[in-house]
């Protein structure tokens, strides 16, 4: 009897533990955790440094820099990345940090769009995400962002690809279990843009999500597509309260 109670309590504790949101950092080994904590050795910081320079650089037909309008990023951009994706009244849709940088580049600077995952796009994203490092993720999913949130939640639970798996099957139902030599993470989007050892380069969460689509042998959605934006909104809502770690380091 006592043993049964103890077992039930242990199971309860295990369930509660499995359900508490955990950053992907918790699933990384000691070396990666140390590298992420080391602002000198984390290679993504090189991209942040470029982003800081790009922030000051005048560009486009308007010959304006980001700083000309927004001033010091340390103040004006503090907390911004932790609140995205969000409804954008000017674009009349939910947009990501990457899309906002791009919209500004085209509309305000009169410069060419930054291609997805290009060095200038990643540099600015990394630099701006860094301004919100340590701040809790918090996105609005009511109001006009609502429908996009529900699309994202639906995608998260929809079986896809030759493996016929949804995000939830690995990252909720099997989170914490072992797959080959790795522990399956909860898929919390706290690190991005992050330096990924597999890529030997930094990349955005969209690149990471596309890799997951490929992992289950599904067609990869295009960069900046509505599906990827909706999925990001749902993921960030799901991670609410966890701190943004960008630029993170991952396997």
């Amino acid at each position, binding site marked *: 009897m006592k043993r049964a109670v103890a077992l039930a309590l242990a199971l309860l504790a295990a369930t509660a533990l499995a359900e508490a949101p955990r950053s992907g950092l918790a699933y*990384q*080994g*000691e*070396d*990666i955790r140390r*590298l992420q904590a080391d602002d000198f050795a984390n290679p993504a910081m090189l991209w942040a440094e470029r982003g800081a320079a790009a922030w000051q650089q005048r560009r486009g037909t308007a010959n304006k820099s980001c700083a000309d309008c927004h001033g010091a990023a340390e103040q004006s951009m503090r907390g911004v990345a932790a609140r995205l994706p969000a409804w954008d009244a000017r674009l009349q849709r939910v947009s990501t940090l990457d899309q906002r940088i791009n919209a500004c580049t085209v509309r305000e600077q009169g410069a060419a769009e930054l291609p997805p995952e290009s060095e200038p796009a990643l540099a600015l994203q990394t630099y701006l995400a860094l301004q919100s490092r340590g701040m809790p993720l918090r996105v609005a999913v009511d109001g006009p962002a609502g429908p996009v949130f529900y699309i994202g939640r639906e995608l998260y639970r929809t079986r896809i690809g030759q*493996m*016929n*798996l949804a995000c939830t*099957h*690995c990252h909720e*139902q*099997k989170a914490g*279990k*072992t*797959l*080959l*030599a*790795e522990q*399956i993470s909860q898929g919390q989007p706290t690190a991005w843009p992050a330096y990924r*050892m*597999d*890529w*030997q380069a930094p990349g955005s969460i969209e690149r990471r999500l*596309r*890799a*997951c689509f*490929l*992992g289950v042998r599904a067609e990869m959605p295009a960069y900046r597509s509505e599906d990827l934006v909706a999925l990001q909104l749902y993921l960030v809502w799901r991670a609410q309260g966890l701190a943004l770690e960008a630029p993170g380091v991952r*396997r």
Partner: protein
Amino acid sequence: MRRRHFLKVGAGGTAILAVPAAAQQLLPAHDLAPLIMQIAGTSPPRPGRVRIGLPSLAENGNSVPLDLAVDSPMSEADHVRSIHVLAERNPRPLVASFQLGPLAGRAQLSLRIRLAGSQRVVALAVMSDGACWSAETEVVVTSAACLDELSL
């Protein structure tokens, strides 16, 4: 029913790991002896004085932290002249050679290396008197659980 069975297999790992597991085909180990002879000269290196710091299990072979240290006063009269790193299953086994001297003050280095799978890593130190000392260690390199874009 069938679908349920597949999910079990997939999420349990077997189906997903099939491809990456096959992808980690280890290259045959190089015979390091000729390289070692080239570095050490005619007398074989003696084990000792060199320390290798390498995780026993590396999460990703693309970037593995390596610390090297050699016991030496690093004085004009007695110092380390060079340090070499060899990985027997890398396609090119000579990873790096460092020349240093008394100006270094301390014979210690850290770097990040690539390892093409689990293997033996050897470090050699050539001293100012011409003697060569060595250390070696085994490292297990794990592969990613999920197929990623670059593994295609």
